[in-house]
């Protein structure tokens, strides 16, 4: 038995001991304890240090609004800073550490800040640290940053799992106190599908702090267990989003000593609710008086919670400060338990009092103590020796979620609180969250609201409880109390006290939102759950206006903080995004390919062979082999789209800038697709396989984009055209077979005449393969060689590729990857998205002739003639070669006129692509250079300031090999 644990009572399993440690000290509690209650039971009241002044702090609440008792829990990759001890269920072996103190919680040097506090008032940063000018970044800021934050995050990998799920229900009930339970029961009895979520470890809310209500609670829970209700304890609903979707986090295994690797530690719920009842209760307001932060001072409801749930007495002698009846009730309960109440200090009239403790009408002046409370000085009155204070400043309904979608809270004179409209689309508010008080009244209200919610969706329910009168009258928020000197804390964690707010108002930051930003009141991890209402009252007084006029700052998600882990779910590490593999992946792998990420794809980049020492060596070999003999490259990642329909030709004619209407069956054509603004969107070849059937290829990057674009054009722009589209990217394995020997090799595989006459350049047909399947063969070339692309059904891809390799072995065919492909296309001056960068028009790339002047319409036609798109100074595609063949050209270098100073004004363009050409034996590049098409032969400087390089070079034609296209047509 530890010092503060009562001999009986509580919702604890006293038969079992749970060992844990705090700052290395070994302690024990019981199942049913929170970390906070277990610490209190062990007499550990000093739990934390505040942010700015490093003031000693204990716990002030027993729930999720806790601003003070934040600790670092767990170890290594499971380390969690800033964890509210009030929300952590005790488990065997739990390790907790205090934060923001050095060298120890008891002796913290940072507390010296408190001595300077008169200079460190609100907003002091903004007015200081400016002299001398250079000192801000070198001296002041590093010091400030070192003091930042409370806990330290781990830098290690998290060993645990997370997951996400959806739930759909007729009614979501948020909060399982009296109102929420009544709502859930009412709805479930009516046959509705119900989700009941509560952040607590046990369902019951405020009923848990009232032993008299326990039998009824047990009964309700037992009945709910038999109905269509998903009970989600340990689940915090953190946000209300459009479409009545709520975000929630379930702490599935956070309370277990050894989380099972087969289950998540946290689960993110997106709950799509037809209707919701918000029954989140009310938060008790602290009283704002000098020294109100000394360990030992907590709210009355927290005191009651620790007493009844965990049988922990917060002190030996408790003084109760109350405004309204809450403190009277607590005093009676404590005395009934045989605990000493030093005094009952009531601000106004309360109910009659027959207890032992003296009843004092007055207000607190100052609490006295350091790391632990010693006494309370009544303003203008007696000093009361006490080691604990329970305070009640009235209640604020918890309306956060109801205000997440733009609704502003409104001040209610009747309730003396800010309320959200009780009826909103999709959401009703019930019980204490609507300003009501008393269990019976809340049960009745919850039942009534659930009935109303179901009526909105056409379901009939009978309230499980009838209406009942309330048991207290609303209390006004207090603001700051008393004239006694000393810091009266409003925002505990951020150390904002009443005077900070008064000064902020005097300096012109009187608007609630400005005061918050200037003083940081309400910006701590509790988001002002306790303090904002008192801040509003203080600002109202400072401004000489009403609290209604001042208002509250905006409520926003998250109701309480949510881990990145829960929000990320399973998407982490290598599973961040799915992997796409080409149908030829296995084939490439068997040849030892190196792969490279290209979007979601893995593409074979090069195929190293024994003895090759670097990628360049492999790539050079592949390029030369293609140019001399033949190679096979996997081009399956190109987008492939099947286009059918009587109007398919007309459709393509409107999609491409060049003509497609007259493309003969059996032929392929290279096409340019523009955006409506005239700039090039994508390019590729499209083949006519039948009168009403085309096969389009797109670039890898825009496969999905082009498909979407075509669908838009077909469905939204020209629904009258008879055209049907199907993405076939994954259906076909496609391989380029390129090189002077390509024909003779392919002829061994393909069962059709491939002679130049029978299958000329740009022929495109379905062809039988000797193995018995049908493929699609296109005589197109990206490399500039005699080349074909052969598409076969994806499942046959690897077998066909292997067969071609075998067939080409006598000629020395090689597999080549995307790197060699890039070199080959640069040598040939073919463009990719490096050149088609979203800001070029066809003429920039020397493709002006591909813009039809006869078609009445195509996408991009109408804005192509604008001044800016026809300006002769526009960048145009050129080739670049270094004057000194030993010098490498780097992509991303800029082009300067020879002799020009390196300034932005003199910038002539930039290198879009570059490669070492093994064929030419030196570096080559493509570039977009102002007026470039007229500048072939000009000497320029290739400027790469990032590498301190300025390389003399010459602009050339962008075609480095076979300018007459003899190889293509061979």
């Amino acid at each position: 038995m530890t010092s503060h644990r009562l001999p009986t009572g509580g919702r604890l399993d006293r038969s079992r001991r749970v060992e844990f440690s705090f700052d290395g000290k070994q302690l024990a509690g019981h199942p049913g304890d929170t970390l906070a209650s277990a610490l209190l039971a062990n007499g550990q009241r000093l739990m934390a240090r505040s942010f700015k002044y490093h003031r000693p702090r204990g716990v002030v609440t027993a729930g999720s609004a806790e601003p003070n008792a934040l600790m670092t829990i767990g170890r290594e990759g499971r380390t969690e800073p800033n964890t509210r001890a009030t929300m952590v269920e005790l488990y065997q072996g739990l390790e907790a550490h205090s934060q923001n103190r050095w060298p120890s919680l008891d002796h913290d040097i940072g507390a010296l800040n408190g001595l300077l506090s008169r200079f460190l008032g609100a907003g002091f940063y903004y007015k200081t640290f400016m002299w001398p000018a250079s000192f801000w970044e070198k001296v002041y800021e590093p010091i400030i940053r070192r003091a930042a934050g409370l806990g330290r995050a781990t830098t290690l990998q998290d060993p645990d799992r997370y997951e996400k799920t959806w739930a759909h229900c007729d009614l979501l009930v948020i909060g399982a106190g009296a109102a929420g339970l009544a709502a859930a029961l009412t709805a479930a009895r009516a046959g509705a599908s119900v989700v009941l979520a509560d952040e607590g470890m046990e369902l019951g809310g405020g009923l848990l702090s009232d032993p008299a209500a326990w039998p009824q609670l047990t009964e309700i829970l037992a009945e709910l267990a038999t109905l269509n209700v998903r009970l989600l304890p340990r689940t915090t609903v953190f946000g209300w989003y459009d479409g009545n979707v709520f975000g929630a986090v379930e702490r599935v295994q956070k309370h277990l000593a050894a989380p099972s690797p087969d289950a998540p530690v946290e689960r993110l719920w997106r709950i799509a609710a037809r209707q919701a009842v918000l029954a989140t209760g009310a938060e008790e307001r602290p009283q704002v008086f000098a020294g109100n932060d000394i360990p030992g001072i907590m709210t009355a409801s927290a005191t009651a919670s620790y007493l009844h749930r965990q049988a922990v007495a917060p002190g030996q002698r408790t003084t109760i400060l109350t405004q309204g009846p809450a403190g009277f009730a607590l005093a009676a309960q404590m005395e009934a338990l045989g605990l000493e109440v030093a005094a009952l200090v009531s601000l106004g009239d309360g109910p009659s009092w027959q207890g032992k403790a003296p009843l004092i009408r007055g207000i607190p002046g100052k609490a006295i103590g350091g790391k632990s409370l010693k006494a309370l000085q009544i303003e203008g009155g007696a000093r009361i020796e006490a080691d604990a204070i329970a305070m009640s400043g009235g209640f604020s309904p918890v309306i956060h979620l109801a205000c997440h979608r733009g609704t502003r809270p409104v001040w209610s004179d009747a309730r003396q609180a800010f309320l959200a409209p009780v009826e909103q689309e999709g959401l009703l508010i019930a019980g204490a969250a609507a300003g009501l008080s008393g269990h019976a009244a809340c049960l009745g209200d919850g039942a009534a609201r659930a009935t109303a919610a179901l009526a909105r969706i056409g379901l009939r329910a009978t309230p499980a409880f009838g209406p009942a009168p309330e048991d207290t009258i609303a209390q006004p928020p207090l603001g700051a109390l008393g004239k006694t000197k000393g810091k009266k804390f409003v925002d505990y964690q951020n150390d904002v006290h009443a005077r900070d707010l008064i000064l902020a108002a005097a300096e012109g930051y009187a608007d609630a939102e400005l005061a918050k930003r200037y003083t940081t009141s309400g910006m701590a991890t509790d988001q002002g759950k306790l303090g904002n209402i008192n801040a509003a009252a203080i600002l109202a007084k400072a401004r000489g206006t009403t609290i209604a006029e001042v208002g509250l700052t905006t409520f926003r998600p998250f109701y309480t903080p949510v881990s990145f882990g829960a929000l990320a779910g399973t998407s982490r590490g290598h599973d961040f995004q799915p992997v796409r593999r080409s149908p030829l992946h296995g084939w490439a792998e068997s040849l030892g390919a190196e792969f490279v990420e290209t979007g979601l794809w893995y593409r074979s980049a090069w195929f190293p062979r024994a003895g090759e020492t670097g990628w360049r060596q492999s790539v050079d070999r592949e390029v030369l082999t293609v140019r001399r003999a033949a190679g096979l490259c996997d081009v399956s990642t190109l987008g492939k789209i099947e286009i059918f329909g009587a109007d398919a030709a007309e459709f393509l004619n409107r999609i491409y800038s060049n003509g497609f209407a007259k493309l003969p069956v059996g032929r392929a054509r290279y096409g340019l697709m523009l955006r409506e603004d005239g700039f090039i969107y994508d390019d590729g070849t499209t083949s006519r396989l039948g009168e009403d059937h085309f096969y389009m290829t797109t670039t890898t990057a825009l496969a999905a984009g082009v498909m979407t674009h075509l669908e838009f054009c077909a469905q939204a722009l020209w629904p009258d055209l008879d055209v049907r589209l199907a993405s076939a990217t994954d259906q076909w394995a496609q391989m380029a077979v390129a090189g002077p020997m390509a024909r003779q090799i392919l002829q061994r595989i393909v069962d059709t005449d491939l002679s130049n006459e029978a299958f000329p350049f740009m022929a495109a047909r379905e062809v039988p393969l000797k193995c018995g399947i049908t493929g699609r063969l296109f005589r197109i070339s990206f490399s500039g060689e005699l080349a074909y692309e052969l598409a076969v059904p994806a499942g046959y891809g690897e077998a066909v590729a292997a067969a071609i390799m075998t067939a080409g072995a006598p000629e020395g065919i090689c597999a080549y990857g995307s790197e060699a492909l890039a070199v080959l296309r640069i040598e040939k001056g073919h463009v990719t998205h490096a050149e088609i960068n979203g800001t070029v028009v066809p003429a920039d790339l020397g493709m002006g002739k591909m813009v039809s002047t006869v078609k009445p319409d195509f996408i991009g036609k109408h804005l192509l003639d604008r001044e800016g798109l026809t300006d002769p100074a526009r960048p145009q595609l050129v080739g670049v070669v270094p004057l000194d063949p030993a010098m490498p050209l780097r992509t991303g270098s800029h082009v300067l006129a020879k002799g020009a100073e390196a300034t932005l004004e003199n910038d002539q363009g930039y290198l879009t692509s570059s490669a070492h050409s093994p064929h030419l034996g030196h570096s080559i590049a493509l570039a977009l250079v102002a007026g470039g098409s007229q500048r072939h032969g000009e000497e320029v400087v290739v400027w790469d300031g990032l590498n301190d390089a300025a390389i003399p070079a010459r602009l050339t034609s962008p075609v480095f090999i076979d300018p007459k296209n003899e190889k293509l047509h061979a």
Partner: protein
Amino acid sequence: MASLIPCPHCGPRPKEEFTVRGAALPRPAPNAPVAEWQAHVYLRENPRGDYAEHWHHSGGCRRWLVVNRNTATHAVHSVTDAAGERP
């Protein structure tokens, strides 16, 4: 934006299955004056209130839709197929 969009073909589906393109504007006639094309491509009424937009059910039926919704409240009033009544 509504978390669920009622696709006329698939029923209410999570918003993440859809891709938005922007204002649902009729494409000018091919012979429309260039100023009309400039306005079509670049200028937007951008109202605070009701707005018709093109959305694509890209993770579903792949139909283009016209979504009528409110840019201030995110309420969705109606969703129709962009091709009109045809498909």
